[in-house]
């Protein structure tokens, strides 16, 4: 196999799938290399599907605003069901400190033009009926955030990309690069090599290894998170609930009611469980259900249907690494568990990088995702 491509994308996941489509729509000849046997089989399908623009920095806010636009209009535009639901996000506060920091962040978010407001406990109880009112001080509520099916959107991108002429090669592992000066001339796999004008590293968990093959040190370290899904019930709650409190064994956790009716939940272990281990441990269900029932006791009647483990490919500061290194390698890695919500917006930006069509806003976004930053800051609300 020896073919010439304008762009070779490494990874058919949350970033690689939309990126390949956007590039092909711009007329570029694109190849996607994926080690798994199908698209979206690593952490794309592990995402619980929450999508929000209410971040704390310009970069992620802008990219996710664009993602939301794309997802919101996908079905009317392309006809595919992707399960988009504008159910919003909420961060309830049970302590004075949390209330203060949330309200403080809201000021920044308002400056970026985000639709987010503070709701008092009674109103929050209408949004999330049955929520534990004891010590509840109120909650943020951002109604334009929402949720979407990573499984359906990933597949929709895949089918559209195929239609747009993208070549996909599955079960194929990237083993190295050939160089022409600082530029990568070929991507070498266990099955062949491919001449590439540009290479996009969208390899999720494997970002660091792929970077190393190109001589770039990418500080991306996956850690493990577990999630679960219940049986479906009639719609009874509105927004995603993010509880930022720390508890023994966990930092934040969150859950929402999916468009099909089940509740999907996920927790951030504390301390983090580093590495990649997709096996389920006995700790998760007691830990997460305890916290969920504390916030919303009526959930106790819901039956858990399935649980799973996935990874957040983390960077030291919780922000992604996106941009060019060397001559023609573009990294789009370290999504810190937000690849699914960043993917669609980021894909358009990646296409503009490839085609040298950056707009002023893009420069500002890329500044906060720059590999050469010092990584000493910290995302306010992961």
């Amino acid at each position: 196999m020896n073919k010439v491509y304008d762009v070779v994308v490494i990874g058919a996941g949350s970033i690689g799938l939309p990126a390949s489509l956007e590039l092909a729509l711009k007329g570029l000849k694109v190849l996607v290399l994926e080690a798994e046997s199908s698209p979206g089989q690593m952490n794309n399908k592990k995402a619980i599907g929450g999508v929000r623009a209410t971040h704390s920095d310009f970069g992620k806010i802008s990219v996710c605003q664009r993602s939301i636009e794309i997802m919101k209009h996908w079905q009317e535009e392309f006809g595919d069901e992707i399960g988009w639901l504008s159910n919003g996000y909420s961060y309830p506060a049970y302590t004075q400190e949390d209330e203060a920091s949330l309200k403080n962040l809201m000021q920044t978010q308002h400056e970026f033009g985000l639709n987010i407001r503070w709701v008092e406990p009674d109103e929050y109880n209408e949004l999330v009926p049955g929520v534990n009112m004891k010590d509840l001080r109120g909650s943020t509520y951002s109604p334009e955030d929402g949720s979407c099916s990573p499984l359906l959107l990933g597949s929709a991108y895949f089918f559209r990309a195929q239609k747009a002429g993208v070549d996909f090669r599955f079960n194929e592992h990237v083993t190295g690069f050939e160089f022409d000066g600082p530029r990568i001339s070929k991507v070498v796999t266990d099955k062949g090599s491919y001449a590439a004008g540009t290479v996009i590293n969208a390899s999720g968990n494997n970002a660091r290894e792929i970077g190393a093959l190109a001589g770039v040190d990418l500080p991306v370290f996956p850690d493990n998170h577990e999630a679960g899904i219940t049986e479906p019930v009639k719609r009874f709650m509105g927004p995603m609930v993010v509880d930022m409190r720390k508890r023994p064994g966990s930092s934040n956790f969150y859950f929402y009611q999916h468009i099909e009716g089940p509740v999907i939940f996920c927790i951030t272990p504390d301390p983090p469980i580093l590495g990649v281990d997709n096996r389920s441990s006995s700790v998760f269900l007691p830990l997460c259900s305890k916290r969920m029932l504390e916030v919303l006791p009526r959930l106790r009647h819901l039956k858990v249907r399935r649980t799973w483990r996935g990874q957040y490919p983390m960077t030291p500061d919780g922000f992604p690494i996106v941009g060019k290194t060397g001559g023609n390698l573009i990294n789009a890695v370290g999504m810190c568990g937000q690849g699914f919500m960043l993917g669609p917006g980021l894909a358009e930006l990646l296409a503009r990088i490839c085609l040298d069509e950056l707009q002023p806003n893009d420069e500002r976004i890329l500044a906060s995702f720059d590999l050469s930053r010092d990584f000493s800051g910290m995302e306010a609300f992961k």
Partner: protein
Amino acid sequence: MENKRIERHPILPVPDREDILFTFNGKPLHAKKGEMISSALIANGINVFGHHHKDGSAQGIFCANGQCAKCTVIVDGIAIKSCMTAVTPGMEVFSAEGLPELPEDGGKPERQAIEELETDVLIIGGGPSGLAAAVELGKRGIQTLLIDDKHALGGKLVLQTHKFFGSEEDSHAGVRGHDIGKLLAAELASHPSVEVWLNSTAIYVFSDQKVGILKDGVYKIVTPKRILNAAGAREKFLRFSGNHLARIYGAGAFQTLVNRDLVRPTQRLFIIGGGNVGLIAGYHALQAGIEVVGLAEAMPRCGGYKVHADKLARLGVPIYTSHSILSANGNETVESVTITQIDDKFQRIPGTEKSFDCDTVLIAVGLDSLSEFTQQALDAGIPVYAAGDALEIAEASSAMFNGKIAGLSIARECGHPEVGEVPLEWLAKAQVLKSHPGAIKDYQDELPEEGVFPVIHCLQEIPCNPCTTVCPTNSIHTEDGSLMALPLYDGSCIGCAKCVLICPGLAITLVDYRKDPENPTITMPYEVFNIPRKVGDALELVDIDGNDLGSFAAVSVVEMKDRQTQLVRVQVPRAIAKKVASFRIQAAQVSQPLPEPIFNEKPADDAMICLCEKVTVGRVRSLIRSGITNLNHIKAITRAGMGPCGAKTCETLIKNLLREEGIPVEQVVPNTKRPVFVEVSLGKFPQGGSDE
């Protein structure tokens, strides 16, 4: 009010249980104290428990085993599985119409620490293999925890009313399955090192080497040093038009309803599948007073033991070999079934379609090992063994024997070197016990028509020999002395009829010329005496295959209580004496096809491949044709496998479809199996206490 209870059963005792009242959709109904809601509903003639939220299709009993959610009803505002929840006095049960509402009231759950325990050996499953293994571990005082998700030990033995095959010394051959279960459970009770948890479902073997178990509704965590997976098997399902209708289910569900709960879920049953499971289910149906309209088997010959097939055919149940189900027809529930003859490539032969009036279709087309716990234990790094159907699908006699071998192997590794290596002849015997039926031969050479002797209508090699061990004059032997070979009579018969009584296949008659050489007396075993035959009744005698031999009056009917078998005698002319095998009890009109077959000319791509999420065969087929063969990707796009049963039903169906579409099995990426094994309320986990 309809009463679908089995009031009289030839084999099973009908317990006198307290009558209680409950309501279904506001209507007062009677139930028996302690029975499951599903059985109480079926006993009242209610077979539709709700309607699916996706397409409004009728839902009813399907697995009767807590594995799916088709039997969901609403009690106290909460969606529960009616097959796993006992009915209580005054309970208000409602049908589950569409998605359930989540109750508003959460209450305040108690907080208790989750109990954590350690054990040297954890056995998952208290059926024949798990019990046999536990007995061996118990004999040696090895600390063992045996869990079973039912309320009694015995596994599927509990549901078996027929006498067992195999050998007397190794597997209680000749004893009825449900009695074997009791024997093993009683033996186990004498070994204090084995603790038994009933009503206990293994949820998952986690990576931290802990096993989550829901015991009586309380979540517990057990850390075992070794695991024996004796969890059995699950039944395969089939793709056919109308396979989503209510009142289509497997033999496990059927036997649970009929033989455990003593309810009659059907009046007219059609069976798909001529393996032992389907054949025996047909026999159980007759014992429960159910009409068995017919049985279809895709192969040119039934895969089950010939003696089982013969028994059914003789009683008057037509067996359609080289036939397959084309459709189940009906509005919400089954009203008729259509079968068709198929060629050697399993393709329908047009013009051969036949439809039959029936209310239930039983699917018995094979089993898949329940191997998840083995894989989970391997992934977690816990030494694991498997026995019984969880290891390999075979008869219960085989399961008991390989369970014993597994128990001994575990004992040796638990510091009992005196157990030694498993003898080679045991391993050989284990092979024999799981043998598929072998060659079919002719009757043994003509015996002189004088005196008295047994005629052995057992012409197929199967692992079974109790007739050889029971004969007081030691006159029955298998051809070469092996368990598999055919039994032959050679010697002196005293006419004691012990062989007649013990034969699990009901395949031995006695022919006695002593009183009247021209009109010898035939002694036949009979076990369906819920359909009574009295002295003087005309019996429609049949040969081994069910062919008519004429009508003759019964001259004696003797009930052998300890064997739960009647010996029925007739006098017949010498010419047919050795041919008489049994008599018909089901009238031919029961099995008459409808005047015109009911079927749709189009191929059955409207059949459901995933009953939980309502995914059609056509939808999955078109994905496969577009190049998608990874089961996880098919699941992601269609939701097939995301439902409550956790891909337990659709996985095999999709794999079959992939094979049909020419995709080699080895290229198919299987479904990723994740926790939990069965759905569990979130409220069970944090406090480790009942959330009621």
